[in-house]
């Protein structure tokens, strides 16, 4: 291979950490309030069902990624349904990740503004954040994975502390009764906020880049299951602390600790949580930026990562300007018809099972034709060895 050796971008452990962080990072800001103020406790039960489906689908994706360790998602798609369909799918994903990026940045900005600052200029906030996010997205998944590996403990500790401190304030009786008025409100609340879900779809962009280790599937299944359970438990906590006033509580992760009188007497511990949670949102934003850049590169065959990063950055800034950096304007848009893109992408993710079988079928036929089989590393990422 001309002195080149194949290097996987991230280890299995890093992939697990990244997925865990991406799954939960922005679910604890305005989502609890948005969901529970309209859906009440019922939305949590609907969410549990939704998460079960998501979890099973995610495990299927993990299994398929292990069956094709050297194939990226794009290669799988192109190899089975053709490049045009693959590009069309990637356009959808690109839109999805750009929306996610806008949500992340505006939501995090509002979160800081509402918890830490009296006044915070969006430009001053945006400049360093975008600088950091796109630099990390540019240098690649390996750096993101390593950063996540270093920072996950703070994120986990912050979340754990938030939950433990908040538990005494919750009256879990408010989880009852179940579906007293039917499921329509809960379903509509979940549907309106669909763009806060489907984060695990980033895993499709880790296809072909993970160095699988022993017990990877089991570890991934346990960690993602625990993360989903934590999200559900957090929603329960939020509802049981603010049963009638969910709409008045803006940021779940800071407010459920803020309410603890004993804590506020010794200082604002919620600020510590906020600071630690910053790492999670940062990593999530970087991953979305990375995925958006991957989509763009694949759609237009852009060879230079720097160029595709800059284009994504430009589109993002345009989006942020269009939303005028206002959470309410962004909510108006992302809770509109555009939200159905999530369900469409989940269906596409589900169709990866079919893609896998079609790919195998074609690949096997090709192998039979081209005997003896040649080893061909189509589209796999290579990096020059430092050695």
């Amino acid at each position, binding site marked *: 291979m001309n002195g080149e050796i194949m290097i996987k971008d991230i280890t299995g452990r890093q992939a697990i950490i990244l997925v865990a962080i991406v799954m939960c990072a922005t679910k604890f800001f305005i989502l609890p309030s948005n969901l529970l103020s309209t859906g009440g406790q019922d939305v949590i039960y609907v969410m549990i069902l939704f998460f079960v489906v998501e979890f099973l689908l995610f495990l299927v994706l993990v299994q398929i990624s292990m069956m094709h360790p050297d194939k990226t998602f794009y290669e799988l798609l192109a190899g089975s349904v053709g490049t045009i369909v693959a590009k069309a799918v990637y356009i959808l994903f690109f839109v999805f990740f750009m929306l996610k990026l806008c949500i992340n940045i505006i939501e995090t900005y509002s979160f800081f503004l509402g918890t830490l600052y009296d006044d915070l200029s969006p430009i001053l906030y945006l400049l360093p954040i975008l600088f950091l996010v796109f630099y990390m997205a540019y240098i690649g998944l390996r750096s993101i994975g390593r950063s996540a590996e270093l920072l996950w403990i703070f994120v986990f500790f912050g979340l754990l502390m938030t939950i433990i401190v908040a538990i005494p304030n919750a009256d879990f009786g408010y989880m009852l*009764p179940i579906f007293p008025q039917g499921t329509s409100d809960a379903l509509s609340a979940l549907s309106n906020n669909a763009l806060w879900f489907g984060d695990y779809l980033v895993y499709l962009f880790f296809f072909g880049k993970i160095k699988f280790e022993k017990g990877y599937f089991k570890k991934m299944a346990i960690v993602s299951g625990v993360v989903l359970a934590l999200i559900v438990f957090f929603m329960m906590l939020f509802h049981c602390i603010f049963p009638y006033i969910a709409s008045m509580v803006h940021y779940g992760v800071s407010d459920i600790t803020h309410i603890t009188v004993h804590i506020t007497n010794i200082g604002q511990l919620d600020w510590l949580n906020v600071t630690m949670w910053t790492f999670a949102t940062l990593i999530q934003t970087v991953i979305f930026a990375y995925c958006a850049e991957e989509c763009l590169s694949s759609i237009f065959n852009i060879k230079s990562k720097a160029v595709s990063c800059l284009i994504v950055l430009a589109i993002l800034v345009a989006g942020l300007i269009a939303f005028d950096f206002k959470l309410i304007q962004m909510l108006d848009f992302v809770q509109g018809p555009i939200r159905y893109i999530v369900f469409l992408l989940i269906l596409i993710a589900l169709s990866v099972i079919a893609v896998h079988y079609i790919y195998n079928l074609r690949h096997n036929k090709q192998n039979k034709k081209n005997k003896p089989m040649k080893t061909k590393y189509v589209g796999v990422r290579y990096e020059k060895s430092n050695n």
Partner: protein
Amino acid sequence: MKSRTIRKIYIGLLFVLLIILLPMFFGMPEQAFEKTLILAFGVDKTADEFELSVQVMVPQSSQSGYSEKREVRSDKGKTIDEAMAKLQLKEGKELAVAHANILLIAESAIEDDINIILDYFVRDRNVGYLTVATTPNNAKELLEISSQESFDKDSLLRLVSFNNENIYGTESTLNKILFGYYSPSKTSLVSRLMSSQGGESDGGQGSSSSGGTTGGDALMGIEGGDSSSSGGESTSKSGQESGQQSQESGGSSQQSGSEGSSGQPSGEQSAGESSGGGEQSGQSSGQNNGNGTQSNSQEKKELGNDGSIAVLKGGKIATILDPLAYRGFHWLMPIKQSSFIRLENITDEIFDNATIIIDITNAKDKIKYEMTEDGTPIIKFKTMLTYQISSVQEDNFSVDKYAEFTEDSSKVIKLALQQLIDTEVQKALNTSKEYQIDVWNVYDKFYQKYGNKFINYVDNNEGDYLKDLEIFVEVNVKEDKL
């Protein structure tokens, strides 16, 4: 582009960013020039206008050091927003509200709906975690008293939070009040603070001192063991009516024993007319906890919390519970901070008409919410109290007698406690029915268990779900001899 070139560009950009941003920070003026820190809010109502008062911190530095002076500023407006805007204009600075931790509202200002006032504080995202208290006096006056040097900056907050955390366990925060306001019960509990001038009424504006308040105990409104002796009304309506009722309730307080009678703040007329809080029953509590009462000997102005609770129904004050009346509600609440109980007239083989003061060290409750076959809601309250005998007062009490203290006496204490708690709980239930206040959040509990069956019951009773409610009390006791 090569990766190295990109990295160089990024590092270059980083320096450019630093060059652009850093001078901005160096050139920033002192925060004190731009912002005024608010520590506490006070809201009064005069005619048809709100008067918003804010206690602000005025930092002063001199050669001798740094000091923080507190001052009160106020302005009026048709709404709180308007008053706030006027205050800012007057101040010439932005009013930074994030550090404010208490909101005092004069009871006269909540004649219509407390939410008219609270809404501003909920919507302002910069307002932090607020503790709310009502006052029968003038909120501005209380802020002025607490701005004196003899009080530290958190004195108002501590007066409320100490009671909440150590005596009655009633959280009186913005969130908790709104939770009650928007819940189906529409009932919220709010702590009260009051001022007085060295025990005299303030300026003779017609305030009535709370009759018969004899050292309202911050520990509890302690009542005699013979619960029937404590009969009489122990709650009162707010405002003008409360003046009349306080005469009755004051009387009942006297009956309930010299040590433990509760303060009756409701004897004061509605705030705004009076700044006199009457005699502060919290005086003894000040000795006990260091927070109950603080005074300035020069001005003779006092600031106190007598443990009374304002009960809001639909945003208006439905009634004011003195500590004794509130204790009846408190028994069915999850946190029992108040602990000292005086049992009087204990007579058995050992004691002869003794007064025994016991300290409840632990309580394990089981509360069952049931609907009978005919649809009547009932509450079965069973509690296991662990107590220690704090003191025994008897004419001929001796050490020998103490040694003889046997299981029989425990039975007598159990009986006395059963009677006491049952009577207090039934009284609280009657108060609930009279004022239609759901302090126990009964609605939620039954709804959680019975769902639409309970909703139908509520509808059939035109919303008065407390009307047929019954409570059965069972008390078990265990002496903690360690």
